[in-house]
């Protein structure tokens, strides 16, 4: 066996985005030694791209806001499929997590009285998103990064070494999570990773592993996600015994760039609409007024006049339908384009130029202005943008305990951030992800530290290690296989076409068949070159994970026979209260993936009381309503 670098840590965090860094900070503050591993450089994780803001009901702009309203909005946005307990914790703890960022040096935009300013966003009743222009994710990841440095400086003072208890391993990708062979009591033993620069392997032995690997959007051709989003965390959780849930729910963000082709999918932040941008079709009509669904009728304006008044007087007017939850807007755009009322490059128009003065646009949306100017030669202060749906976020993810973020089915494994499932139900509200990362990142860090105290430090067996290394090196020995680039492009095309924004049974079945073909193609992938910084090899290691996750998406999409949030079935167009009662759980059984229905826990009467009955009756079955009624009385 080749000599490899070995480390022992209390907690290994896979992922250096918002969730991973927040978890690492917490575990370190609880006195544990922590390693943070990431595929790209420190500070470059996906979180850096988030634009709009962090949702937290601080009530700085409208003091009617509080955690209960935020909780309600989150449940509504997720079509009541959310893990209510997570939604509750999230809404309650988000403000503290944002304030904490400020005490670590974050500089949010301010209100007149010096507090953190908050902006409007789709699905949020009040201005709720703490932000910095349209680069909030950058502020967040930089602040967390700098907090880690601050902790390292403290360690250095105490021990002489920056890396005494908290160490970042950047460009160090994990391929495998090891479990101990204790049968029923099997638990996490460590992870195998390789340095991208050198291609050398590193073994980390640790009692707890926190997954914070983000999403899966790279399975799609048109996506706002980067190469990192191959669903590694999802796949590795399955492989080591964890469950995935609700993988059919993918958020297609309504506004991605559509032109030029090479930037198709790159995100146009929702703040454009929150700050006054409107959507029109080729006939110049503000078509969103035609798409307000029944359940939201009482919450959105029905005339342009009222919608326009809302920007200045939100207390006495209803909000414009451009700010409906993302799934609604994405479907509406899709329908308009299909009906032949699209823009020249197959999107619709999004216009702020006629609504705000140029200098305000540049102040509020600087990076959007920049992005369109430099990538598309469009000056958004003068012309409308062309936009269309783009794969953006996965609501589904690793099934976890709501309070501790411990993965169900794999002891010692935790998951937080986009890789975790449950909080967002069938559709995530904008801004709820960044707050999710902070709230549950912290919880994962805290409870993983507690878990470490209850177990002995584990070891990884040489046999397991050898097997994992052999697997990772296989692409070099395949004699005459295919290059991974072609396979990935085909997979992305396939998923876009067959398990995209609108789905039907026949297409998903076809997708599942294709996935089997991909398995064969991937079995003998071949890479050229050596092990030092070889992106071809890196891709070959990511691809099987990406395929496994794609399979989970397709399987779940086939199983759920209704349309809800980020899952739209042409053959089952309505929302069905019977289906709301279930989560779809995926579990690996040997080489196969099994799927089964699991009942959703019933919301507590206290939380249910936050909604009026008329509203609940739109989502819940008669039985559920009556059992709730009994609970409250």
């Amino acid at each position: 066996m080749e000599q490899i670098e070995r480390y022992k840590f209390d907690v290994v965090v896979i992922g250096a985005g918002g969730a991973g860094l927040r978890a690492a900070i917490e575990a370190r503050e609880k006195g544990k030694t922590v390693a943070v591993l990431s595929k790209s450089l420190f500070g470059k994780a996906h979180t850096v791209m988030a634009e709009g803001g962090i949702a937290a009901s601080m009530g700085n702009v409208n003091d009617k806001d509080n955690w209960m309203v935020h909780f309600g909005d989150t449940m509504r946005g997720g079509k009541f499929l959310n893990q209510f307990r997570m939604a509750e914790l999230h809404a309650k703890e988000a403000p503290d997590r944002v304030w904490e960022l400020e005490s670590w040096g974050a500089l949010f935009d301010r209100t007149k009285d010096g507090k953190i300013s908050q902006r409007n966003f789709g699905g949020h009743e009040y201005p709720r998103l703490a932000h910095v222009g349209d680069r909030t994710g950058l502020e967040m990841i930089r602040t967390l990064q700098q907090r880690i440095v601050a902790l390292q400086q403290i360690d250095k003072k105490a021990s002489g070494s920056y890396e005494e208890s908290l160490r970042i391993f950047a460009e160090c990708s994990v391929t495998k999570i090891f479990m101990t062979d204790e049968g029923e009591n099997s638990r996490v033993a460590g992870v195998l990773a390789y340095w991208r620069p050198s291609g050398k392997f590193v073994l980390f032995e640790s009692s707890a592993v926190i997954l914070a690997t983000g999403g899966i959007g790279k399975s799609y051709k048109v996506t706002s996600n980067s190469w990192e989003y191959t669903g590694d965390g999802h796949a590795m959780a399955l492989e080591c015994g964890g469950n995935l849930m609700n993988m059919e729910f993918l958020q297609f963000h309504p506004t991605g760039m559509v032109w030029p082709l090479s930037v198709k999918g790159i995100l146009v932040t929702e703040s454009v609409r929150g700050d006054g941008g409107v959507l029109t079709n080729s006939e110049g009509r503000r078509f969103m007024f035609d798409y307000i669904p029944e359940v939201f009728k009482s919450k959105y304006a029905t005339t342009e006049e009222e919608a326009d008044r809302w920007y200045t007087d939100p207390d006495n007017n209803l909000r414009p339908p451009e700010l409906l939850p993302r799934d609604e807007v994405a479907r509406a755009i899709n329908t308009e384009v299909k009906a032949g009322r699209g823009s020249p490059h197959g999107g619709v128009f999004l216009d702020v130029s006629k609504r705000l003065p140029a200098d305000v646009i540049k102040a509020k949306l600087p990076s959007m202005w920049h992005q369109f100017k430099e990538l598309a030669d469009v000056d958004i202060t003068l012309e409308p943008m062309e936009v269309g749906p783009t794969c953006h976020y996965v609501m589904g993810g690793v099934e976890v305990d709501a309070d501790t973020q411990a993965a169900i089915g794999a002891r010692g494994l935790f998951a937080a951030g986009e890789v975790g499932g449950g909080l967002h139900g069938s559709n995530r509200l904008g801004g709820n992800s960044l707050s999710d990362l902070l709230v549950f990142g912290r919880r994962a860090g805290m409870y993983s530290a507690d878990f470490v105290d209850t177990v002995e430090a584990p070891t990884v067996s040489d046999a397991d290690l050898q097997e994992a290394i052999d697997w990772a090196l296989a692409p070099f020995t395949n004699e005459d296989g295919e290059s991974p680039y072609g396979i990935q492009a085909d997979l992305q095309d396939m998923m876009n076409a067959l398990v995209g924004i609108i789905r039907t049974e026949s297409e998903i079945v076809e997708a599942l068949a294709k996935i089997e073909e991909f398995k064969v193609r991937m079995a003998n992938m071949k890479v050229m070159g050596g092990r030092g910084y070889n992106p071809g090899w890196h891709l070959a290691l990511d691809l099987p994970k990406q395929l496994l996750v794609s399979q989970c998406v397709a399987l779940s999409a086939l199983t759920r026979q209704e349309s809800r949030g980020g899952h739209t079935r042409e053959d089952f167009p309505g929302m069905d209260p019977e289906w709301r009662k279930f989560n779809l759980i995926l579990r690996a059984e040997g080489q196969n993936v099994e799927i089964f229905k699991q009942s959703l826990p019933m919301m507590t009467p206290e939380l249910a009381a936050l909604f009026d009955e008329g509203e609940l009756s739109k989502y819940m079955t008669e039985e559920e309503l009556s059992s709730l009624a009994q609970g409250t009385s």
Partner: protein
Amino acid sequence: MSSSLDTPSAAPIPTKAKIGVRTLRTDRWWLMPAVTVAVLLSFIAYSTWRAFENAYYFSEPLISPFYSPCLATSCVEGSSQWMPIGSWWILSPALLILAFPLGFRLTCYYYRKAYFRSFWMSPPACGVSEPHTKYTGESRFPLILNNSHRYFFYAGLVFNVLLTYDAIIAFRNAEGAWGHMSIGTLVLLLNATFLWLYSLSCHSCRHAMGGRLKHFSKHPVRYKGWTFVSKLNPYHPRFAWISLIGVALADLYVRQVASGAITNFYFF
């Protein structure tokens, strides 16, 4: 944390990419430094000649900015009201005062950029390697003296006042009667204006106005001042060039008038 390091480090031996050529830039990066050298050298040549010429700097009511204020007894009659230096100074009176504007411009943040790039070639342009084997920048003597810029800035303000005064007294005719205006008046007025703009847009000025504050909100007036200077500041390089050439042209105009080569045209 414990570790056993079988392989010493993550990255291979750190060496820069050996690319050989000094730059791969394909544009005319040498143009700017070349132009800078040409203009600055011309100015230096002209101003040195004029400083030593010690003549043709005054023609009622115009005084050349090179010679104002004229501080030595040797100043031509009428060019100065007070002559604090006295008669021991036998060189050109210009040399007495040119030191200040010279120091001001030498330590100016913009001129520093200009001469470091063009004369010193460190670097001649971005992404073009400099020819020196050692570099310590402004971290030691003598270049550390550039930190005295603020004093030259204050001195510059005094000169601005004097030159403004010169422009104002140029609203007289050759007999000293007020209420007249000539091309010479205009020349001196423009000269003074650009010198003011140059000084006001100065980085030290910006700092003194409010840049050094931590809380703008506690000093609303200084914040206004800072905002104003901050608006001018991006144009500082432009004002630096215009005012430099302006001073030379103003001097040239006065010289031509004083030497009788042209007559100062009066509008009224």
